[in-house]
């Protein structure tokens, strides 16, 4: 492992401290969204469209309204029509305003038609059954090809939608980024390979589905207690959707049972708030598992074609990447996920002077795609890393060798950083830390790459193989994301840390407390963390884009440094020494000169009650001028049953450079979890649809995610680097891990049996078909 020279010794950062919310979670104390029981709460339920594409000719709610216990029914006829996006992103919002609270038209099976608030779930469901809707069914399209064809039905023909790239042709968003001269690049190349890989609909399957409680506080302000990754965006978007002033809304995010991106989306909060406003009563809404699959958000299904041109020595000379993304019925994250297919992948191999990244995000009459861990990079790396494997083979080179020859190094840049940003141009950036070379070395050693690669093992019907892939991601969104933190000192020398940042189970509350504790010279237990409450905590964009440790963490660092300065100032008065001579550690302010000291509680007491009384506190914000990429090298070993096509992942090794891990165990957990999700993508996960667009397997009985019994031996290694721009040298780790399994497993299958799997998931059926076709 790389030894980072002369890193300052830390006492809290870099340690596996106890999670700040660990004990309450383990004890099962009520902490989650639905763990409140407000008197008079109504249950909200949504009527979903049975058709993939239809106009609503009429809605008759009279029977439903007559049902005892029904408080209110909302539909397009009795709510204001305001276009907005459900995607919880920064401002200006890069996703089109193509959604309405309720629309005159439905665009997929499961789309919103109406909502009911009733005294009980049973009554609400009965009311849904009593609503009579007359539809005029329209022709529907279920693939980007159909949607792009001449004469295809126009899914967004409403005139008041804005921000759609080309509504007439069902194109939600498009990108076209040329660098150099791609045709010349290929003609100058000695070897050219091409791979087209495809990912289907898959869902995040958080253990806790979307759920929300909307109610009014004593002052009549609307409180939305919700399972979200983006409380501040919820406030802004609900205010817009309902035409409410923002100061009338408070959003609280309690503990969350997982999000993985699907909770970067406003899918229930707007409806629950509307029902609460109309009835004046608390309203609770929860998605069933079926709704979670169909009506929350999914990964963008995508076909990505990658063409690589290289010189004989393996140096990449030209890379073309074309993405066709299916955004479903609405354009949530359509442009930004599409952009990330290229922006998070192409800089990894920055040696090629000629690049062309282009693609479209296309509307279809299928469920709505959105943010999902990896955010386009996962789709991009599948094709890129399979193509790299093919290129290595054509060149007669070891795949690791090919990566070493081409990957970006510290001190280097890529034109892509500047060309592609978050829905607009990006910012130039130099990579300041990169330990990928070391990751490749460590990973290869752990898996036993060279000996396993040189001889293929075959035992009876089982064929064994090893494969690898590399990936990077970012740490936050350059120039757009903002995180802020407030730290206040109590008179006993403890602190309150208020952050808008959103812990969705990742442990970010703990990590942010560690950063504050390190600066303030106290153990984590002396920091009380309160997060994600739009009334009480400062702004933060929320938990997405691998941003919290880097962006919010830096805000915490800055706030803590300011509080430290204030503490030293008070202590200087008490010790009668200049602040420059004072040090803060072990809950003491100590003079480096005289050795005299005061405790933090004495300082707190002094400032609060004694002399020049004031609140020691600071607020700091951070907008990242850069987005330092974490890097990971993935290796896996698979066994393929050549008679049935069954694939077993036997071992997985990932060596990652996330800078300095603030909490190594939590960082490892992020990596392991992402790899498991990636294995699900590779082997089992796929939503199936009927020819009428109805989802056929929207439940965990039919849609299979890996369970603990399926998870192979996973070894993760954190290879340290030090990111000079990050808090205590940290970068991100949350997403990068999901980018590797698809290509690494595909490449390992190729090594084992000589066939390339380019359509996920690699089911026994697809593997066997490929074996019969190409084997």
């Amino acid at each position, binding site marked *: 492992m790389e030894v980072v020279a002369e890193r300052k010794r830390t006492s809290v950062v870099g340690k596996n401290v106890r999670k700040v919310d660990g004990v309450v979670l383990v004890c099962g104390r009520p902490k989650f969204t639905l763990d409140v029981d407000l008197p008079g709460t109504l249950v909200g339920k949504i009527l979903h469209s049975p058709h993939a594409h239809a106009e609503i000719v009429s809605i008759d709610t009279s029977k439903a309204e007559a049902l005892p216990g029904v408080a209110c029914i909302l539909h397009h006829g009795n709510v204001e029509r305001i276009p907005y996006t459900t995607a919880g992103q920064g401002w200006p919002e890069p996703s089109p305003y193509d959604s309405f609270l309720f629309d005159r038209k439905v665009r997929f099976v499961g789309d919103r038609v109406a909502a009911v608030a009733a005294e009980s779930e049973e009554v609400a469901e009965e009311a849904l059954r009593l609503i009579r809707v007359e539809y005029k069914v329209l022709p529907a399209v279920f693939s980007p090809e159909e949607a792009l064809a001449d004469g295809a039905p126009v899914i967004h023909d409403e005139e008041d939608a804005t921000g759609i790239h080309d509504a007439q042709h069902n194109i939600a968003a498009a990108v076209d980024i040329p660098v150099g001269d791609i045709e010349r690049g290929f003609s100058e190349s000695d070897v050219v390979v091409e791979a087209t890989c495809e990912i289907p609909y898959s869902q995040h399957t958080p253990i806790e589905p979307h759920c929300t409680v909307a109610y009014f506080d004593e002052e009549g302000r609307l409180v939305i207690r919700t399972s979200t990754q983006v409380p501040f965006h919820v406030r802004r978007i609900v205010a817009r959707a309902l035409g409410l002033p923002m100061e009338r809304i408070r959003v609280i995010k309690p503990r969350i049972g997982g999000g993985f991106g699907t909770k970067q989306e406003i899918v229930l909060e707007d409806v629950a708030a509307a029902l609460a406003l109309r009835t004046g009563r608390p309203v609770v809404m929860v998605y069933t598992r079926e709704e979670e699959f169909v009506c929350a958000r999914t990964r963008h299904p995508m076909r990505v074609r990658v063409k690589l041109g290289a010189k004989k020595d393996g140096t990449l000379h030209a890379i073309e990447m074309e993405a066709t993304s299916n955004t479903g019925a609405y354009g949530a994250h359509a442009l930004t996920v599409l952009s990330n297919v290229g922006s998070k992948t192409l800089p990894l191999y920055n040696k090629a002077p000629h690049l062309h990244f282009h693609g479209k995000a296309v509307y279809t009459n299928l469920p709505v795609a959105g943010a999902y861990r990896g955010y386009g990079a996962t789709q991009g790396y599948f094709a890129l890393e399979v193509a790299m494997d093919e290129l290595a083979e054509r060149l007669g080179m070891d795949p690791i060798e090919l990566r070493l020859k081409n990957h970006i190094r510290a001190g280097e840049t890529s034109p892509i950083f500047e060309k592609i940003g978050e829905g607009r141009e990006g910012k130039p950036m130099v990579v300041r830390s990169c330990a990928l070379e070391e990751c490749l070395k460590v990973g290869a050693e752990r898996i036993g790459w060279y000996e396993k690669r040189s001889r293929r093992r075959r035992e009876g019907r089982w064929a064994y193989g090893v494969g690898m892939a590399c990936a990077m991601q970012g740490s936050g969104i350059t120039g757009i994301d903002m995180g802020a933190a407030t730290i206040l000192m109590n008179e006993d020398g403890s602190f309150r840390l208020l952050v808008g940042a959103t812990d969705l189970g990742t442990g970010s509350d703990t990590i942010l407390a560690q950063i504050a504790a390190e600066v303030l010279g106290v153990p984590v237990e002396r920091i009380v963390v309160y997060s994600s409450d739009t009334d009480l905590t400062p702004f933060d964009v929320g938990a997405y884009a691998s941003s919290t440790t880097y962006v919010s963490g830096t805000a915490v660092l800055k706030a803590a440094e300011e509080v430290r300065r204030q503490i030293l100032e008070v202590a200087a008065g008490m010790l009668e020494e200049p602040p420059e001579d004072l040090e803060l550690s072990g809950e003491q302010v100590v003079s480096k000169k005289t050795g005299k000291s005061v405790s933090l509680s004495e300082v707190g007491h002094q400032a609060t009650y004694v002399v020049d009384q004031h609140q020691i506190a600071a607020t700091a914000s951070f907008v990242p001028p850069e987005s330092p990429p974490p890097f990971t090298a993935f290796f896996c070993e698979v066994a393929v049953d050549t*008679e049935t096509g069954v694939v077993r992942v036997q071992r997985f090794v990932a060596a990652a450079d996330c800078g300095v891990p603030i909490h190594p165990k939590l960082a490892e957990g992020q990596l392991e979890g992402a790899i498991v999700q990636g294995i699900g993508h590779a*082997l*089992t996960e796929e939503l199936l649809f009927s020819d009428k667009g109805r989802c056929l397997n929207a439940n965990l*009985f039919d849609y*299979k995610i890996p*369970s603990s*019994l399926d998870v192979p031996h996973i070894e993760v290694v954190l290879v340290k680097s030090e990111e000079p721009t990050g808090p205590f040298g940290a970068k991100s780790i949350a997403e990068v891990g999901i980018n590797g399994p698809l290509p690494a497993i595909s490449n390992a299958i190729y090594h084992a049996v000589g066939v390339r799997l380019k359509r996920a998931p690699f089911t*026994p059926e697809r593997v*066997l078909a490929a074996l019969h076709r190409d084997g």
Partner: protein
Amino acid sequence: MRLRGIKRFHYARDVEEALSLLSAYQGRAALLAGGVDLARAARGDLEGLIDITGMGLSYVREEGGGLRIGATTTLTGILENKAAQGYLGGFFCEVLRQVAAPPLRNMATLGGAVVSAHPWADIPTALVALGAEVRWSDEKGEHRASVEELWQGQFRKIFRNAVLTEIRLPAWEGAFAFEKLSRSACDIALLNCACGLGIEDGKIAWARVAVGATPRRGRRLTWLEDFLVGNQPGEGLWREVRDRVEAQVEVSSDRRASGAWRKAVVGPLVARTLKRAAEKMGDA
């Protein structure tokens, strides 16, 4: 919400009480064992649930090399039972260990599995191969049948007014093996197979072969059993089995797998299951 109409919950003390409750409800009540199927059933018509797990029908008994298993014995209860572990070298436990996940096995009962008899399930395939016999009681008295006979008839109708009481697994001089193909460890089968062999003087003396989740419920391939008898186990035979099975077994498509894939893998699946059974006899 499922089972929304339930108004009363009963604990039956014995079979008679369960039967009289069932008849009193005239079809609007159901017996509740582990409940894992009942909880998934969209039976809005049900008004009463009759818990039958306290009627003394949870037991496993060894008898002459075979097993008698009470209908409400949970799958975990069987897995933890010494006699069950010893039965046919642990064959039945080997099957049950591949059924769903531990929390589910803690609830699910063998009787429930027989009454539900899901076509995709593993237990029916194994019971058919074993030639299991079941006993049930209705108002007319006690009845018995082999599972094959039972499932060929209108068994769902029978159990609207009957209590399954016991499942009997016979003794066999030989060895059984089970194989299942699925997408993940806790998944139901895409195809499954249970085989048993008796070998005398190096030749197959008897054979039992059942294939399930085709996607139809497990059934025996008697023509293959007949063919196997008198043959010598070995690679040549297994190759022959592969080809014959592929040519003759009827499979089709469902959402989980296509008929083409099932056709391609059913031969190898049966051959490998038979081979493992033969290996267990120490006579591969």
